[in-house]
């Protein structure tokens, strides 16, 4: 018997080569669209455009030497925002990787809060301790602190979800990772534990074609990534990652399954990283330029815009205005974050433990004494910023 919530997984069975698509690259509806109000569709569109604007501003900030690092998110917007829109952040958590700017942006994390992290300033929730793009937010959504070692968030998501189940909460945990991360210990242990315990987790693999310079065919001999769920007893589905409605639909179904106690799902969103791995990477060394041209033709934002305008949900002028507003917003956020001071020197020593132990007190006193006697680590008024 086919369970009513699992229909899409029966139709999208293991190893399928065709990814679910609702909007084709020209913006034409080719599948059954989820029933979403106009406001919800526009919120998704706006978040995608703002994500691109945030990404673009960060690239420019890095190129002009204002920040040290960023990771391009261009091309990924539909995967991030489609997944984000399926979450109920009153109960659900996210255990993310670093290439998903669209999730916090969709859920109302302020652009300046994200810029605070890019600059590592006094208001950065990571207190300037991490490289840029390693966000951590606990409101308005639980968006776990991002790590640089890959795949470590995956078993953590399972633990978060097991705790929800134990506390009889209705929440689920969405964890996101790239295609390269499917080779990590964390992917395998996380998938295995989730399968064994039936944890309410949604695994979202962002197959963006490249693990830095290493293409998918050098990452795995399997046919895609969704098939990897099978060995763990977890259904796997493939979705067009540049089709925001298809991503929304598949992630929503997976969340519904998880909430209903039917266990985890692995989703492979097929997309393409329209840039380097990071600002330190030069993709022209390994990506055929023709590939960028082909994927430009599948641009998730242009596609969704064409769909929304042809369906009469959004006027062309409205779309233009959203873009202009988004760019202005990110410019202003960058300016605001750049103007803030750096964290005070003592923050090197706090949050290592709940209480600062004596040996760190001693090291903190030394550092403050050493640098303040040279006029360093003091604010513009000449006070030591404690």
């Amino acid at each position, binding site marked *: 018997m086919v369970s009513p919530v699992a229909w899409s997984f029966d139709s999208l069975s293991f190893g399928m080569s065709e990814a679910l698509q609702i909007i084709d690259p020209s913006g034409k509806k080719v599948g059954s669209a989820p029933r979403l109000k106009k406001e919800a569709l526009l919120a998704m569109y706006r978040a995608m455009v703002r994500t691109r604007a945030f990404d673009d501003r960060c690239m420019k900030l890095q190129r002009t030497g204002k920040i040290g690092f960023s990771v391009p998110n261009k091309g990924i917007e539909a995967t991030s925002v489609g997944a984000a829109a399926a979450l109920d952040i009153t109960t659900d958590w996210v255990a993310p990787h670093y290439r998903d700017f669209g999730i916090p942006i969709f859920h109302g994390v302020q652009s300046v809060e994200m810029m605070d992290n890019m600059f590592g300033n006094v208001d950065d*929730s990571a207190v300037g301790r991490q490289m840029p793009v390693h966000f951590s*937010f606990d409101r308005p959504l639980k968006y776990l602190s991002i790590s640089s*070692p890959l795949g*470590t968030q995956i*078993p953590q998501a*399972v*633990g978060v979800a*097991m705790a929800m189940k134990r506390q009889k909460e209705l929440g689920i945990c969405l964890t996101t990772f790239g295609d390269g991360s499917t080779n990590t210990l964390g992917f395998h242990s996380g998938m295995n534990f989730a399968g*064994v315990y039936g944890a309410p987790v949604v695994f979202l693999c962002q197959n963006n074609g490249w693990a830095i310079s290493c293409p998918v065919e050098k990452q795995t001999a399997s046919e895609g990534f969704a098939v990897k769920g099978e060995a763990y007893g977890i259904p796997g589905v493939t979705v067009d990652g540049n089709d925001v409605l298809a991503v929304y639909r598949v992630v929503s179904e997976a969340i519904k399954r998880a909430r209903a106690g039917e266990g985890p799902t692995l989703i492979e969103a097929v997309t393409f990283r329209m840039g380097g791995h990071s600002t330190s990477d030069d993709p022209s060394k390994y990506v055929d330029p023709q590939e960028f041209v082909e994927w430009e033709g599948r641009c998730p934002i242009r596609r969704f815009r064409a769909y929304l305008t042809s369906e009469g949900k959004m006027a062309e002028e409205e779309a233009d205005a959203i873009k202009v507003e988004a760019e202005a917003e990110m410019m202003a956020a960058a300016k605001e974050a750049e103007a803030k001071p750096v964290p005070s020197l003592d923050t090197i020593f706090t949050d290592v*433990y709940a209480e600062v132990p004596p040996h760190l007190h001693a090291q903190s006193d030394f550092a403050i004494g050493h640098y303040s006697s040279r006029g360093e680590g003091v604010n513009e008024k000449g006070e030591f910023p404690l």
Partner: protein
Amino acid sequence: MVQAVNDGLKSIMREDDSVLVLGEDVGPKGGVFLATEGLTSEFGEDRCFDTPLSEDGIIGVGVGLAMNGMKPVCEIQFQDFIFPAFDQIVSEAAKMRYRSGGQYTVPMVIRTPYGGGIRGGLYHSQSGEAYFAHTAGLKVVVPSTPYDAKGLLISSILDPDPVIFLEPKALYRAFREDIPEGMYTVDLSTTRDVLPGDDAVIFCYGAMVPVATEAARRIKESRNKDARVVDLRTLMPLDEDAVLQAARDCGRIVIVQEAPRFCGYGSELSAMIAEHAVEYLEAPIKRVTGFDTPFPNTLENYYLPDARRVTDAVEEVLDF
């Protein structure tokens, strides 16, 4: 001692239902050393459960449980098998509070039997405390008596930060000691004077505590000298004041560890005393340690420091 660990787990699990126990074979079997015996039958499978054979998974899932309101006590069957989870411990558990500015924290205990003395060879004998004491954000606790095992374990579980709780498996069934029933705690970051004395001091922890104590008795007998024996109990954060005070009081110092010598815990202790109390020293600091080799099986009794080696070292510092 293993019964004290078991009793400690039961005592806190009765008080606090956010305490969960997970690991390989910790369920109905009760763990390979029986430290978790009876937990699943008393508290149910959702409080004490078997996991797949996956150390990375045990600790990764533990980190997630801890971030969402649970107090997981993860068992790694032998400390030698902890290395697949090293990334989760060192990169994740240890750094979560720091990198999230306190938004996310990991109140988790990792219990694991460590050390030699059971003919365990290369992979059931190692003492890896230095790896963990070297990592900011972790606490490292090593009991040496049943009383301390229970009290320190409960303190570790109540602690808001991740604790590596190293249980000297050589002492699991070494001697009996009556301990209080129910909840009690022993404060972390406090040392314990096992024997008084001010002619010399032996710093030690875990399975080396009875070895050092025996050496001190022999010195008393043969030389009528009183060697103080200090059980460090918490290696990180260490009670540095207590260590330096003992060093100043005694002036002659022996440090005993079963781990290899190079960059071992004793190296740090020695450097700390040299930096802060050199003017009190009457003799060079002497370390008695395992050798800088992998841990041998058949010849383990020659690898491990014993009372004779420690006695010799104390005599050396006394005679200097």
